[in-house]
């Protein structure tokens, strides 16, 4: 009992140290800083922009499905955790059992994947469509392409009799 607690005691030391550092930082800054609030200072910081509306917005329901899938695999990891500690002792049998365990769960993941639950919600921006078709045929440098056109025609057409007509 003492042994286990003292192992977790190390965790507790780190935990206490983290709490003390954060809380101590807040307390010292509270003691040192001047306290003169105004409405500009109290607004939410949004990279210099004026905050618009409330930050409480409704999230997409798809995040909830992903959170549910996360919890399932969270529990799966929990069952594999004791398995991992004795994996070397039991060898192939333990490996096969764990592979079956993961394999059954992968069926569920494959189902969610096929049904499109894992697909990310893409933004669908409304881009204004300009009538660009007429301009697409225009080359980037009109004078250059015209020169090459003339050069390609001239040597061949010089020998031909049809040139004077044009």
């Amino acid at each position, binding site marked *: 009992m003492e042994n286990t607690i003292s192992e977790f005691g190390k965790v507790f030391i780190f935990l206490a140290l983290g709490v003390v550092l954060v809380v101590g930082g807040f307390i010292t800054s509270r003691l040192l800083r001047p306290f003169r609030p105004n409405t500009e200072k109290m607004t939410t910081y949004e990279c210099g922009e004026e905050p618009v509306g409330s930050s409480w917005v409704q999230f997409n329901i798809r995040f909830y499905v992903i959170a549910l899938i996360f919890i399932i695999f969270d529990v799966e990891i929990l069952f594999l955790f004791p398995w991992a500690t004795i994996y070397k002792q039991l060898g192939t049998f*333990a490996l096969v059992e764990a592979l079956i365990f993961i394999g059954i769960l992968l069926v569920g993941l494959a189902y969610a994947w096929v049904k499109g639950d894992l697909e990310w919600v893409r933004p669908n921006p409304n881009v204004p469509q300009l009538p660009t078709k007429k301009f697409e045929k225009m080359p980037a440098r009109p004078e250059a392409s015209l020169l090459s056109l003339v050069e390609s025609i001239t040597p061949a057409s010089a020998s031909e009799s049809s040139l004077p007509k044009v």
Partner: protein
Amino acid sequence: MNSLAYQIIFYLFAAIIVGSAALVVISKNIIHSAFGLLFTFFGVAAIYVYLNADFIAVTQIVVYVGGILVLLLFGVMLTNKITQADLKTETLNPVPGLLITLSVLAMLLYTFYFRAKWVTVPVDQQLRGTVVEPIGIATMTTYVLPFEIVSIVLMVALLGAAYIARADRKVQTKEGK
């Protein structure tokens, strides 16, 4: 000295549990309640450590703090009107509620003082070290079939959760159209 330090830390965690649980109930801001629950779960994990149940303590942190609470916060964020939500209940029923609370408290105290068989085995005869390895050996030898059935249960839970959440979304899109 050592046991005194253990006791002080135990009461610290007990105070954290009770205080944060009270915050969950009392707070009118639903986000504050959710974060109070974080500290409650965490303190309970510390109590599991004191009970020498290290695997359960880690389970508590991984599943409840890491999983259930994330789900809870997602649920809060998914609700539409968080700030306007009025968390006051209309029906209070103070007299029956108080009666039930006091009777449960009396039952617990009676069990605590007269009926419960507290462990009085000396410390050196109790369980030593980690229990993760015995659990692993048990799951791989005696309880292999339940271990595999658990994966089927988890898969069914995954399928059901994904199906229900998706069916909900279809209804929404139909309403949108």
